[in-house]
């Protein structure tokens, strides 16, 4: 490891830490620890990507923020409230939306019902949020009576995002949004995420398609074996020789 990289910090100074701030997070599944001392920040309006090799624990970071793993130590602060160890039900109330990687729609429910479920914690389905989702993804409105299981992969991904946007979250967490999409749809999906971010929602994303993700994002983290190794602007990481060699295939 060269001198320049070794000096690179994996955490932002505390006065720059914004919306989401993860410090020294240890987490895993049952007795198995996957993450150790992970640091991560997402500032208000920022677009942050986590890249890294398979099995590094990228998805686990997201699940841990959302309270879906076994909490083992450290802090997760969101909007000035400590949320480590909370239930997903409570974290949703704080303003985080999460789109899991697989099986992220209710296949047997209609498109409209899926979106209604996204606003389950509210007493009534917010009509303006529903309209906004339909405006963002017009294909969903066309198919609102169809079952989600009958949609194509790309449409299901849109529905999953739409469901998470129903509560107008401050932070949207996306786990591999391009996974399983046909190559010509990947670009379109990233464009849509750009627009969601441009409209003021912070985005935290895990991606296999690291080059594209880093090109798009404001800042990226490289996660290796459950610890984050680097953090830098997306373009800087893309230009980094070692990151290219190790994780981006040269």
């Amino acid at each position: 490891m060269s001198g320049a990289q070794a000096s690179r910090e994996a955490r932002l100074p505390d006065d720059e830490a914004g919306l989401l701030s993860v410090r020294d997070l240890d987490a895993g599944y049952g007795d198995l620890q996957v993450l150790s001392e992970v640091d991560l920040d997402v500032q208000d309006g920022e677009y942050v990507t986590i890249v890294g090799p398979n099995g590094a624990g990228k998805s686990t970071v997201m699940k841990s923020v959302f309270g879906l793993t076994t909490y083992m130590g450290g802090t997760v602060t969101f909007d000035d409230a400590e949320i480590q160890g909370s239930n997903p039900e409570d974290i949703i109330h704080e303003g985080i939306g999460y789109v899991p990687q697989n099986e992220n729609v209710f296949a047997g429910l209609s498109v409209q019902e899926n979106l209604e479920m996204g606003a389950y914690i509210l007493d009534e389905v917010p009509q303006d949020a529903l309209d906004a989702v339909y405006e963002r993804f017009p294909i969903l409105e066309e198919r609102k009576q169809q079952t989600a299981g009958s949609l194509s992969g790309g449409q299901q991904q849109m529905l999953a995002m739409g469901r998470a946007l129903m509560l107008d979250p401050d932070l949207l967490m996306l786990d591999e949004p391009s996974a399983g999409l046909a190559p010509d749809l990947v670009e379109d999906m990233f464009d849509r995420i750009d627009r969601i971010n441009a409209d003021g929602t912070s985005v935290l994303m895990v991606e296999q398609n690291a080059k594209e993700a880093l090109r798009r994002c404001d800042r990226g983290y490289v996660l290796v074996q459950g610890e984050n190794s680097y953090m830098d602007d997306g373009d800087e990481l893309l230009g980094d020789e070692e990151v290219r060699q190790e994780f981006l295939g040269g």
Partner: protein
Amino acid sequence: MNRTNALDHGVRYVRTSPGATAVVAFSAILLLDLLAKLVGFSLGPLTVAGIDLGPFGGEMPFTRLVSYTWDGLVIGLVIGLASIGLSLTYSILNFANFAHGDYLTAGAFSGWAATYIIAGLGGLLPIVESAVHAVTGVGQRTIRNTDLVSLVLLETPPGTAGANVWLSPIAVVVGLAVAVVLTIAMALVIDRFVYKPIRGADGISLLIASIGVAFGIRYLVALVFGNSRRIVTSTDQLPEVTLIGTRIDAHEVTLVVVAILLMLGMHVLLQRTKLGKAMRAMADNRDLARVTGIPTERVIRTTWMLGAGLTGAAGFLLVLSQAGLGFTTGWRLLLLIFAAVIMGGIGSIYGAIAGGLVIGLASRVSLVWLQGDFSSFTSPAAFALMILILLFRPSGIFGGVSTA
């Protein structure tokens, strides 16, 4: 030319799917036999390998077919109603609840005990009047002097108790409500102390736990009510009509109406209400439901309440139409309920209803062919039909159509 094509096609079909051909041929024989019976055509007694199969055709009035069908419909609706509960708990809690039949028994006993008390004491009004008299001294004691214990334990003869929808309709309605409420209460208590502590366990552990629960309930019922099978309802002065030679009494009509109303209510609940949609969402994908903020524990509680309520109602109605009740009533019915759920496609309540009707109809209409010594083989006939349907549609009638 067309005929040769059709013949070729037929030959190819027989070659490629001999099983289906055998089924079609067998069905055709049964159908011909039925037609022969209806027109009164008979072909000597047939004996194969020393077993007397009875005559081909024979004589059977059309009205008997109608009355078998009606009986099948009645029992099918009860099985369907009970199957909804099993299907719901299966799809949302992910395990096969072997105690389900005993929930049905418990519902039947508790509901009928309530009916006996009210009917046996002379109705709801005298009970209220006497209670007011006992407390305040106003009015008078109007209840009959009856042995309350033998009423509660269903030991009073049904005629004396007046357990009849015509003579004491209010007692029957209250009994139905009590069956629903007590079965729900029992299911919630059992969930709290047995299933909730092992919520994360795999389906097999939960299933074995439920077998334990089944024994617990069954013998608790036997301990309280005794182990004899009894006739509970009375058909004294019960109105009945005869349609196409089929006697339809008020108990059966009550069953059909209540069962259909409950099924419609269930449909509306699942399709139209927020809670129902959440139940379907959870049946679909439990992890995603959690991530979406659906309160999963509350949905599980609601599932138990709905499933147990319907099952308790099914138990009460079963006794209303069949009259007999013993501590193994539900347990005996459980196999048929499972068959209905599996045949309909596990997890679908519409499948459960359809499966219940098919099982019910098969177990009664098969009497057309199963006569004499064979008349006790109606349940095997229903199971055989289930196996046949699963051979051709392995995921069940409504399988793959997820409806919760």
